[in-house]
């Protein structure tokens, strides 16, 4: 085999971008997941002061965290435009609702500080926005796992002749995304974010502070729900996705089993640290669980970007574009992670509700 053939190199590079895509999405879930979960927690806040304190606790970081979603979108567009242009068309409704949620919470951050009479309104915009963004992101993920129908030719729903293109466009109905499974993954995302948000709030506020204490109970409940949700999702996926079932029960079944055991170990470490109020460690172990499950999901999907719809090779940009993208963009990933980390580091430390709110 010719090791230096263009096709081979391009295939390797696109797989590399597939990994970076999963990394960007993971960083989004890991960093913004906690922010979104804290927003869901704020749905049950008794007063505006508490919502204000929760928002203030992430004031310097949230937009950096949220921008990983934009980076993931940019990587998708830059490396896999064929997926970007068809999957987003398919996900029009859930993405629209998620974006509306993101808009609401983004402006709520800036407005809540200055508001006097409308504090309540923006507090709710923050909490509901977080819920919507999480739920519909989960729906989008579930819907993507199910794949979507495509055909070539004109995509727009108009009567026009004389245009042909070999490119495969989304061709299904606008409600195709809506299935019991995708609704379930929406709830699953809300549960997962709630757990992450609880762990974050425990680590962010001083033990004994009202937010910390309520977040503790919240986390205990959310962790049980999350364990249940993982089991349900695995069984459900096994039942409806032949590509997943084949991989999990194939000759490499023991790797998947070992992986699950490691996940359980991480979850156990997280819960032990949580119970002795080593909250930062608990949060990091919890994020470790997310990382492991996320990696397992992508390993299951391989070699697809969208299961049964787009393979990595079919969805990738031409070799020349992928090469340029790799040359100029790869080096920025460690840099991005570095300054996002520095930003989080600067704003580290625990708050009390009163102080965070007053500073807000």
């Amino acid at each position: 085999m010719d090791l230096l053939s263009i096709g081979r190199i391009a295939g390797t590079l696109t797989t590399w971008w597939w990994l970076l895509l999963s990394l960007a999405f993971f960083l989004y879930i890991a960093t913004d997941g906690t922010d979104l979960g804290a927003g869901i927690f704020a749905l049950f806040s008794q007063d505006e002061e508490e919502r204000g304190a929760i928002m203030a606790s992430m004031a310097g970081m949230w937009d950096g965290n949220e921008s990983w979603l934009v980076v993931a979108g940019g990587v998708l567009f830059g490396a896999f435009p064929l997926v970007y242009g068809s999957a987003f068309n398919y996900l029009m409704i859930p993405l629209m609702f998620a974006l509306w949620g993101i808009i609401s919470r983004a402006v709520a951050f800036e407005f809540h500080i200055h508001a006097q009479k409308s504090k309540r309104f923006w507090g709710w915009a923050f909490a509901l926005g977080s819920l919507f963004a999480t739920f519909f992101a989960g729906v989008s993920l579930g819907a993507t796992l199910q794949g979507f129908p495509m055909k070539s030719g004109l995509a727009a729903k108009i009567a026009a002749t004389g245009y042909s293109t070999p490119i495969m466009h989304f061709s299904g109905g606008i409600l195709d995304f809506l299935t019991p499974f995708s609704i379930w993954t929406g709830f699953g995302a809300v549960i997962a974010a709630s757990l992450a948000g609880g762990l974050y709030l425990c680590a962010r506020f001083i033990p004994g502070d009202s937010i910390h204490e309520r977040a503790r109970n919240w986390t205990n409940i959310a962790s049980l729900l999350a364990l249940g949700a993982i089991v349900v999702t695995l069984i459900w996926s096994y039942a409806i996705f032949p590509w997943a079932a084949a991989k999990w029960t194939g000759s490499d079944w023991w790797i998947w089993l070992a992986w699950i055991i490691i996940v359980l170990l991480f979850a156990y470490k997280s819960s032990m640290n949580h119970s002795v109020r080593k909250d930062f460690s608990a949060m990091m172990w919890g994020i470790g669980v997310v990382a492991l499950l996320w990696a397992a999901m992508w390993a299951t999907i391989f070699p697809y970007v969208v299961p049964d719809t787009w393979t990595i090779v079919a969805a990738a940009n031409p070799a020349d574009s992928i090469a340029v993208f790799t040359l100029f963009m790869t080096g920025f990933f460690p840099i991005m992670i570095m300054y996002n980390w520095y930003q989080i580091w600067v704003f580290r430390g625990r708050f009390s509700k009163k102080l965070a709110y007053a500073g807000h």
Partner: protein
Amino acid sequence: MIIENSLPILLSRLDFAWITSMHILWTPMTIGMSWLLFIMEVAWLRTGNERWYKLNRFVEKIFIINFGAGVATGVTMEMAFGILYGPFSQAVGPFFGNILGFETITAFMYEAGFIGLMVFGWGKISKGMHLFATFNVGLSSSLSAMWILVANSWMQTPNGVVLKDGLFQVTNWWNAILNDNFQWGFPHMWVATVELALFVLAGLSAFFILKNRNADLFTKLLKPVLLALIIVTPLQIFIGDSIGRVVAHTQPTSLAAMEGHYHTYLPDGKVNTGWHLIAIPNAKNDGNVFAITIPHVLSLLETHTLNGKVTGMDSFPANDRPDVWVPFYSFRVMVAIGFFLFLIAIWGNWLRLRGKLNASELRKRPWFLRAVVFSAFLPYLAIWCGWWTREVGRQPWVVNGLMRTYQGTSHMPVAMEIIWWVGYIFFELTVWAGSWYFFTRVIKKGVDDIPDSSTLFENHGDNAEAHPGGGHVTPTFASKPMLRSDR
């Protein structure tokens, strides 16, 4: 009727036009103002003069509201190409997709990473580090503008690509990135952001002087701003003329629409050299019902000769002609604003020459101050109009001459396009109304309650009092969760 004006395609255009128009309300201020904040911070650090610190912190409050609105509307933009124009995104992926990827990785994330430090990092990071953060916000937002203009200019002049297997495959990266339209299009947009930010500062200053609140402080700000404007406003007119001639060469239909220029030749066979001050295009889009015309001016503008030939709409098939109403009038409004702002800059600097740029003299000239406050709003309208000219003038193409808009439109029902639009009308207007309302709140609070810069590094510890209006959150103990012993 051309297919781009049929309901499903028109709605998809409106959907995208609406979110773009509501996004471009915020980004120019971020791009231009970040550099002005940087300059103010340098001035503070070099001179030690407290007024630059106060002004910086005050303007920063407006800046961060503006930035939040920009992020809120910007995430939608990043997804909307795939949602509303999926087939377009797929076809242009090899170039346009890469460029948007460059933008998110080298600019969007870069900016988000440093803006939190810049706004909430006061007193938590050293002064030098803070200046570095401000500099990075400036650089990243300008980079962002550059990449977006690369992408959009390429849609106007798609150089360096070949359409093969349904994809725009790149043959020459340099030609594609430094395409004809980009060379003047990016400077035009970038200078517009600086001009907008300068006029916002000038308008703020004029407002405070007019209300006699901190009048001396804001006069100190108004003076350098007016000086900068006397350079920036004519420069922008020059760049605008240059991009106009690029459009004349590369997009003759767009230029013909901008000028309402339907006929290359007059009925008597002579070259049509007339420039329309105003015009009413007919329903068939093949002539003007009414026009006020000045002969020779169009040829003079586009060819720099008295009787040079300018290609009219009648040289192109009917279904390749853009709508005339939008480009014609938005172009005129933009140009008129450009010249009006130049006049304001001249007025201000004429006052300077006569030694009238001090608070008491300025307060005797309320009409000048009112005119400057009014001018703070005009760059927004000018940027809107310029972008509409650009985008509508390119129709019916999404990639000029190569891909028509209907070929790039997503697969979606009309009802869904309407729901999208109605929803975004609600959300974008809420963002707009909220942001402008809170701008007024910040202005109402003014600069008086901004604490002295000497208090920046105080109050760390358990008994810390929060700084009013400082946006400053004090950690109750430093880094304990990170300490080894705590794990």
